[in-house]
């Protein structure tokens, strides 16, 4: 929990003012509340804290420049623990107690799937970085956008990358998640279209060893294995693949096969040559430069970049709507992200332009941030890396 504190005296004063002159002063004194709900612990633990930090930095910047519609913005940060139960509890608190108008940054697909219904039922706007196809197919009535490419786009690109490496027989190992079945179907289709074949297995991510699962996978004789799990289970998988003497290619999601995984395994030859892929941040964009400064990271991860975009978009949508509700954000977010206008890369510039009556077109740190009607992004580049001597090295961005 990390909220921007209001001093007791200030709170008291605003309370007195509100009683004395209800309508006018209350509007000025009450801050606009928005929230981050990121994984500060669990499998997403490496990403959530810095995501929340960057969102707070954006809010601080906007407040320093006078806030939104003449009101200060207050950011409430909660931890979803990378766990749907905890995510729902935290979302309930944000919606019922804090009465935020937007929740940003839900990370794991299972968490987003659980939190989304609470949001659309309470008309709270939800911005997520989760990828499962099923999420934007939920009946969210427009109260949801995501800046992460969906499973279809991600796994298609992953499959094409494996083909480019010469892998004909591919195999998917994926834990039971909202994207498990789709991942398998999509990779199978990509492989078969190119004349190859595909096998798959959905595993229990709570096991302490995957020897039998690996035996089963290796019987298929794959040239490449797509490990689509999260960090904890992928550690066990990679160890067991090494023990089993598997010499083929391995591709994993960069959010699972990260430096933490490499350090955890602690033996470079186990992870040597493993490929990773991730939606690329908008390399070379001015927005990304701003995220680098705010996060203090030389190469911010995609999720941090995405949550930077969420915060900017939500605040600008409120300004265009001249209202701060979730519904106002829903109805106006596409007006500031697409359809031409003055290009902006941050809310402070955007809010000024909007106040001056200009139309803006936001392009962020994660990409152009243009959404279709379902809430999916229209375009995204991917970054492919390979682990060599315990360090991720760039293969290509495409």
């Amino acid at each position: 929990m990390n909220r921007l504190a209001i001093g007791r005296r200030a709170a008291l004063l605003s309370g007195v003012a509100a009683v004395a002159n209800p309508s006018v002063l209350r509007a000025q004194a009450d801050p606009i509340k928005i929230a981050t709900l990121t994984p500060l612990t669990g499998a997403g633990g490496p990403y959530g804290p810095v995501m929340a930090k960057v969102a707070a930095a954006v809010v601080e910047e906007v407040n320093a420049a006078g806030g939104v519609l003449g009101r200060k913005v207050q950011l409430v940060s909660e931890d979803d623990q990378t766990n749907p139960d905890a995510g729902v509890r935290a979302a309930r608190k944000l919606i019922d107690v804090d009465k935020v108008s937007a929740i940003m940054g839900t990370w794991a697909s299972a968490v987003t799937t659980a939190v989304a219904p609470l949001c659309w039922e309470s008309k709270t706007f939800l911005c997520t970085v989760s990828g499962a196809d099923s999420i934007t197919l939920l009946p969210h009535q427009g109260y949801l956008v995501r800046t992460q490419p969906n499973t279809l786009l991600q796994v298609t690109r992953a499959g094409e990358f494996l083909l480019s490496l010469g892998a004909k027989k591919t195999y998917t190992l994926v834990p039971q998640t909202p994207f498990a079945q789709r991942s398998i179907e999509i990779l199978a289709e990509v492989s078969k279209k190119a004349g190859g074949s595909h096998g798959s297995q959905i595993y229990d991510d709570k096991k302490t060893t995957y020897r039998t699962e690996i035996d089963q996978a290796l019987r298929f004789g794959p040239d490449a294995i797509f490990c689509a799990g999260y960090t904890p289970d992928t550690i066990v998988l990679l160890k067991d693949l090494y023990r089993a003497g598997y010499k083929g290619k391995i591709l994993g999601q960069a959010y699972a096969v990260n430096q933490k995984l490499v350090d955890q395994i602690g033996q470079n030859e186990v992870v040597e040559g493993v490929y990773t892929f991730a939606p690329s941040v908008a390399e070379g964009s001015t927005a990304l430069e701003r995220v680098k400064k705010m996060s203090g990271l030389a190469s911010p991860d995609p999720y941090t970049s995405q949550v930077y975009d969420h915060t900017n978009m939500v605040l600008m949508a409120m300004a265009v709507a001249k209202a701060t509700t979730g519904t106002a954000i829903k109805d106006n977010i596409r007006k500031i992200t697409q359809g031409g206008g003055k290009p902006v890369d941050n809310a402070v510039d955007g809010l000024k332009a909007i106040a001056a009556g200009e139309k803006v077109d936001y392009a962020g740190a994660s990409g152009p941030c243009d959404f279709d009607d379902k809430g999916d992004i229209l375009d995204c580049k991917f970054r492919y890396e390979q682990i060599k001597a315990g360090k991720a090295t760039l293969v290509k961005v495409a």
Partner: protein
Amino acid sequence: MTILLQALLNGLVSGALLAVPAIGFTAMFAVLRFPNFSVSGVATLGAFAGYVAYAAGLQIIGSLAVAFAIAGAVGLFLDRTAHMPLVKQGALPAAIASIASGLVLENVVRLLFGNELRGYDRPIARDLRIGDIRFSPQQLETMAIALAIMLAVFAALAFTRIGKSMRASADNPELAALKGIRPQRVAMMASFVGMGLVGMGGMLLGLDSSIDPLTGTRILLSIFAAAVLGGLGSAPGAVLGAFLIGIAEEAAVLAVGSAYRAAVGFFAILIVLSLRPRGLLGERAF
């Protein structure tokens, strides 16, 4: 055929690791007469205690001793303060209290060590092969340690004074008390040794993979299923149950897919409770 043999071998390895905490669980049930579900937290505690000892430079055996001592002491403390005062009202209140103390322990570990995954710093080696069957030397080592612990427990139950009095108390507490066996002492011994075994089990399971505050919770169902399958209260039953559960869990991967592994434990409990509630070997403590 090969794959079946391989699954059997994998099952035997995980069964051996499971047997250690299962004996602890069942021994406590035999003497204290309630299912102590705080084993989830105690197994995690043992895994972390062993981890700290191992990182401090102790060998595996030394670290196991540390895991045993710390898990045993904390388990005994919990039994004395939280569980035993409730046993007089029946097994259920004590069992529910033990679920709570397991959660508390898990979160104490989380507070001290965080949610991060940690691994024992052991080298990862390629497996050895005999024909098409592969096995890892480390896993065999861990399995051998588990078997040695089991032998030691059985020897202690059979030949030592305290072992005999534990069996006597489990069989018939009143008669044992008449014979001059002090029930309090036996109960405390059962708590300490039982929880110590659970702590060592947590560490043995963590040796090969990685540990986090949920380590114990993940194996709780398998431990309980093994004990119920073999007959709650029977130490040899727990060993048999652990091997059967271990093998069944691996075989389930081949038959219905890994995602349904957790169902194996529930299914075993369901079958045993409906067909043979006493379990395979009945309730005799030895």
